């Protein structure tokens, strides 16, 4: 038996200083200090202002530069409410050059006509595309949903089969069947977007299905609202205007061009880059993820501590 038992004060102190007794204090001290240093002094504040700040900085350069090459006019602007689409507004629609139509016809014949028919009139397997406009086609093809992988389930987003130019060529051909009709391909300058307005509009019109964080969710059997974390500003406006799948179609009388621009700005600037000031964001799915962390990591870690400092027999 150790002598400590009879040794009195000195022995008692030595007993307390054993690694087994000191370890919890040391660990907790370290944890506390790290926590306080890392998170207290306005670090939340800094990141909160950091993310929304680029509002004025980055334009959607890719889309705008492409657009300027393809634009011939703002010929067919579907604007019933709000301001007319224009470069100054940050949202306008492009007309695709005639030279795209011929290669587009070839691409369509090779990849789409099996289901949609040679003149895009549809058939038993697929809908009529005439009159839907270049914007609708651009949405489905550029998100990889078309060509379909599986016709029995909701079309899923996947890497697109066509590159940007091919996508525009197919869109141009479909548009050429019904000139002036349907949804045009928008160009969105999100740096002009109003994030406050976008927040309000998104909460009112979109959050009920896509969730307030834009993470998406299951709706009914086989139907779901997809995540918005991958969408581009052009695709967002195309989806608003064309109403793909189960999504309702929002015309310019309901969501004006200004509104559409603000929503696209809010989704791409705020929802796709959320201010996760508090640490790991857990996928933006709310208390489900948090509950798992609290129970498995929080309570779990503390039970392990119990197991460590308690007897096991």
């Amino acid at each position: 038996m150790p002598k400590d038992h009879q040794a009195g004060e000195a022995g008692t102190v030595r007993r307390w200083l054993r690694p087994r007794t000191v370890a919890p204090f040391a660990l907790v001290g370290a944890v506390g200090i790290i926590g306080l240093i890392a998170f207290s002094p306005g670090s939340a504040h800094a990141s909160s202002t950091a993310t929304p700040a680029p509002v004025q900085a980055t334009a959607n350069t890719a889309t705008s530069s492409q657009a300027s090459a393809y634009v011939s006019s703002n010929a067919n602007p579907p604007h019933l409410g709000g301001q007319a689409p224009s470069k100054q507004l940050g949202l306008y629609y492009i007309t695709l050059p005639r030279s795209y139509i011929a290669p587009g016809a070839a691409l369509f014949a090779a990849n789409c006509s099996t289901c949609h028919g040679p003149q895009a009139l549809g058939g038993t397997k697929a809908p009529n595309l005439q009159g839907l406009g270049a914007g609708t086609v651009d949405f489905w093809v550029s998100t990889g949903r078309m060509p379909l992988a599986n016709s029995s389930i909701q079309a899923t987003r996947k890497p697109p089969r066509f590159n940007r130019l091919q996508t525009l060529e197919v869109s141009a051909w479909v548009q050429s069947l019904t000139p002036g009709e349907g949804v045009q391909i928008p160009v969105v300058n999100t740096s002009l977007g109003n994030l406050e307005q976008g927040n309000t509009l998104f909460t009112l019109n979109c959050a009920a299905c896509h969730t307030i964080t834009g993470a998406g969710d299951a709706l009914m059997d086989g139907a779901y609202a997809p995540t918005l974390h991958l969408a581009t500003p052009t695709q967002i406006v195309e989806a608003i205007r064309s109403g793909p799948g189960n999504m309702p179609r929002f015309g310019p009388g309901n969501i004006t061009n200004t509104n559409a621009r603000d929503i696209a700005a809010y989704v791409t600037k705020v929802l796709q880059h959320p201010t996760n000031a508090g640490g790991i964001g857990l996928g933006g799915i709310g208390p489900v993820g948090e509950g798992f962390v609290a129970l498995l990591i929080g309570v779990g870690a503390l039970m392990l501590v119990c197991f460590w400092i308690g007897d096991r027999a």
Partner: protein
Amino acid sequence: MIDESLRWVDDRLGIAKGGRTFLDKIFPDHWSFMLGEIALYSFVVLLGTGVFLSLYYVPSAHEIIYHGSYLPLRGQRVSEAYASTVGLSFDVRSGLLMRQAHHWAADIFVGAIAVHMARVFFTGAFRKPREFNWIVGVTMLILAIVNGFLGYSLPDDLVSGTGIRIAYSIIESVPLVGSYLAFFLFGGNYPGSGVIIPRFFIIHVLIVPLILLGLLGAHLGLLVKQKHTQFPGKSKSERNVVGSPMFPTFMAKTTGFLFMTTGVIFLLGGFVQINPIWQFGQYESYKISYAVQPDWYMGWLDGALRIMPSWEWVGWGHTIPLEVFLPAVIFPGIVFNIFYTWPFIESRHTKDLAYHNLLDRPRDRPKRTAAGAAMLGLLGTVFFASSTDVMANFFDLPLMGVLWFFRIAVIVVPIVSYFLAYQICNELRQAEGLGKRKRALAVTLTESGEYRTEESEPRPGDGAGVELEPVPVPAFIDVVPPELATGEGVRRVMR
């Protein structure tokens, strides 16, 4: 010098005797006895962080224009409650850390209560004479859940506002008095006259914590008075308690544990985001988001609501919405009544009216263990049912399929768990010596070429009859006679 001043205090207050009893309180060393302390220390963290938050939070539904540092909200009309919560997250030094630590502490608090309660249940620690303490504990569980919900609602964000809306409907679903109760609480038809935030606030920060503190005192007071239970074992009996004394061993251990709990909570609070209300926005009754769940401890109620078929009863000019009333009022009512009355149900069933200080191994009480497993199965199923949409989306399953799976599972799982647990208990009991260390077998080759196996010598601490020599307790504790002490730092006192 210290002696003199202490004597001076004691001469006037006479606390030495009680203090001695407290410092000599014996705590059994088994790890499962520390689960309740997780809850205790998370509660301490809750009080501390809660005081901090209450310095900045404004409990008012009054609408103002947000001008804080989170850009997407600027210029929006928000309630003062929401604006102040976003403000304390972004514009107050360490405010977000405190708010997240408070929220994580709440999640861990209820989780620790549940785990602690399961330990007490499965080992039979609630039996006579400890029924009162069980009842106090169940009451604290209910209050913890209620207060968690109230606190979750205070920021007035879109997600929690949906929860308040559901709570209103649940209150309204009570037959006859429902509408009156809801009007009374909300000050009118939903969303009420702006009184719900200040009311929830005062219940959350004053009334419930005060009751919780009182019950906590009773819980621990009864624990000291009745002394701990303990697992049966060598030199442990119904009439003694074997373990470490409060001073010095347990005090060092438990203080370390306080810091560990605080550390884990603040680590989570610092590194893992919880409830980012600035992403959700202000609650308005016409706004809605999908994928809205309550915090985990309310999940079982939300799940019950989700899987309930839409039945209602209409007659004599009244509607009783059974689809809300049954899962959200009757179901938790039954569950908590079972919790409350279990000690009495069990003693009536077993006709066991004796005092019990020694705990059961769960396997030795197969019916109780099976009943507990069935209850856990039921609550676990409805708990998971509250994330039907997230599951359907995450695993790419049809939503109604997931829903129907849970509707069937809620009946099947408890029954299966009951019989499975019962069977496992019985089989464990029949396998004698299971879980004990085996004695090594020594294989020897004799000269005639024969192999022989023999059990080796038992290691110290193994097997019966090998008892360690009793060790005298340290000289400065003279209350306990040396012959009662055993093992290193472990003491045995009579009840």
